[in-house]
């Protein structure tokens, strides 16, 4: 009985990841107990991870269909820059009260609209014109970044009303605002994937695109909606980054792209589509953040962290391939990805 439970525990990648997350947390706590476990560190971690965690949710969604969205960071920066242009033009740093909140809402909506249009562009390129997602989003990412550079001349935009900082630096009842935003988005994504027909179709399409087509699924509409949502998530991440940095620039967060892909795969998402869970991504985000902050406290350089991230990714893949993908591939013979 006990063995059975243990077998069930290691059978799911999420459970293994939970073990890894706890181990990393425990090791870091043991190595620098007074600093890693301090309230200050825990809150600073809660402020740091939501921005790339939101990008990872976008990666989860697109990877579920067997695609990928390499343009999320470009979309994030372009949306943030459009929002920043609106804010600096109509509500300078002096703006306060109702007017400032109103303009923040307008800027937020504008950013979401930019994200949606950019995502729609990706979706049409992929679903209607049949471009491979890697190339479509690589090309569109260059275009979005390029437009952002052209709009700003490459420099940072600054000078927003004070309320803007709330999105990235504020707290509600002591809980960081970006963490609340991420929790809402993660819960929303879990609902979308697990409780709606759309979520079911996304996973069916990812598991077998041909079967989905033969089942008379509206594949074009499905993919367009997936990339549209991904673009809007990118825009939200961009707003959080803008608020935390109190500025917007065309090349912010360029290292987040690799990080978002890494987190999704670490979270057990199958990059060839069909499998991935929000809880896995959340656990992967936490693991990365524990590792980052912990190593930072131990005085390990940023670059050694990159080395450890890459190593962790490959290690988790080895474990997952040995235990998960292989038995599944043996169970259903078919075209190997």
């Amino acid at each position, binding site marked *: 009985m006990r063995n059975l439970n243990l077998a069930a525990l290691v059978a799911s990648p999420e459970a293994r990841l939970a073990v890894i997350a706890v181990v990393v947390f425990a090791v870091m706590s043991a190595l620098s107990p007074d600093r890693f476990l301090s309230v200050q560190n825990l809150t600073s971690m809660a402020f740091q991870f939501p921005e790339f965690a939101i990008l990872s949710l976008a990666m989860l969604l697109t990877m579920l269909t067997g695609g990928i969205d390499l343009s999320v960071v470009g979309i994030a920066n372009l949306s943030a820059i459009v929002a920043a242009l609106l804010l600096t033009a109509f509500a300078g740093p002096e703006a306060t009260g109702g007017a400032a909140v109103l303009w923040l809402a307008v800027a937020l909506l504008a950013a979401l609209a930019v994200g949606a249009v950019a995502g729609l562009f990706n979706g049409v390129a992929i679903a209607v014109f049949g*471009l491979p997602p890697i*190339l479509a989003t690589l090309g569109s990412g*260059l*275009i979005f970044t390029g437009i952002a550079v052209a709009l700003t001349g490459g420099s940072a935009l600054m000078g927003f009303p004070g309320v803007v900082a709330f999105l990235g630096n504020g707290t509600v009842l002591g809980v960081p605002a970006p963490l609340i935003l991420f929790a809402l988005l993660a819960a929303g994504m879990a609902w979308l994937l697990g409780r709606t027909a759309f979520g079911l179709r996304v996973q069916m399409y990812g598991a077998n695109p041909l079967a989905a087509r033969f089942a008379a699924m509206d594949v074009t509409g499905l993919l367009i909606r997936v990339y549209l949502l991904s673009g809007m998530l990118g825009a939200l991440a961009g707003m959080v980054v803008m608020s935390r940095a109190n500025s917007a620039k065309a090349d912010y967060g360029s290292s987040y792209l690799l990080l978002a892909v890494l987190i999704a795969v670490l979270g057990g998402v199958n990059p060839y589509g069909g499998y991935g869970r929000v809880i896995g991504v959340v656990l992967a985000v936490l693991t990365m953040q524990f590792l980052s902050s912990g190593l930072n406290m131990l005085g*390990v350089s940023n*670059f050694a*962290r990159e*080395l*450890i991230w*890459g190593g962790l990714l490959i290690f988790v893949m080895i474990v997952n391939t040995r235990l998960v993908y292989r038995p599944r591939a043996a169970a259903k013979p078919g075209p190997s990805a």
Partner: protein
Amino acid sequence: MRHVDFSRNETLVALVILAFCAAATLADPAFLSMPTLTDLLRGGIVLGIFAVAALLVLISGGIDVSFTAIAAVSMYSTAMALNTFAPGVPWGVAFALGMTIGAGLGCINAVFIAGFGLPTLIVTLGTLSMFRGFMLAFIGQKQITTLPSGMREFGRMMMIRGTNPDGSFYSLPLAFAFLVGAVVLTWVILHRTMLGRQVFAMGGSLESARRVGVNVKGAQFFVYIYVGALAGLAGVIHASMTRVANPFDLVGLELSVIAAVVLGGARLAGGYGTLTGTLLGVALIVLVRNSLIVFGIPSTWQSVAVGVLILIGTGLPAWQAKRAAARAA
């Protein structure tokens, strides 16, 4: 005379290059000159070697994004090691060392891909960050401005040197010969050896290749080690030509290189790709990067132009294929 096939990417890219050159010449008659040509060729050396490497991986059915990190690590450690232990050795030694380091790193990729059977994109994403992280954390972060004398000397060697009637200089570095060499060697391997047939077969269908008796693991080891060696070569050439070994250079180019290769007609799914197409793809990207300014388009719009190019270049054939499939169904 052979029929010109307009559905092929090579034809399309060649036509776009011709149209671009014609338009650029109309906009500025000085465009059509030796300096433009040698600038174009010089700009294509490192990108071209990378592209040949990326093409081989794509044909074999994989994708490699770590080659830029391999190049950066090889370049930086070669310059560092020679400066420390043997600053006076000829450039051949630097090249051999760089290629050996590159091949070694490529071998690490191969162990994970062939040995553990992991997806190529994930492995190379991981090693990209591992190789770069290792170099920056443990080897160094400062750029090396005084290169070993051999590399400096190589950077000054030219194949062609000349002066225009208007007094401007042009020159083509000897490094270009290495691009030609890499292209020729890769062509011979792909089209004149059993190994090359096996690489194509693997990309077409891994399982079929295995069943007809291809040593899939062996061929994968060859592909990733060869690509690593080419990347090491490109890294050392890059440092010699720019006269500095900057550890932050090169990484970030990987997706543009893959885009150039796909622009030239190679399939991401594997099993198909040509060297002609690859070189045309590289030429187009370098041309747009170098010469957009001729049309009065400011350089801030450069990445937009490259993005549009990638979307159109890969979109047209993808759309044609989709329509053909719809007609057949």
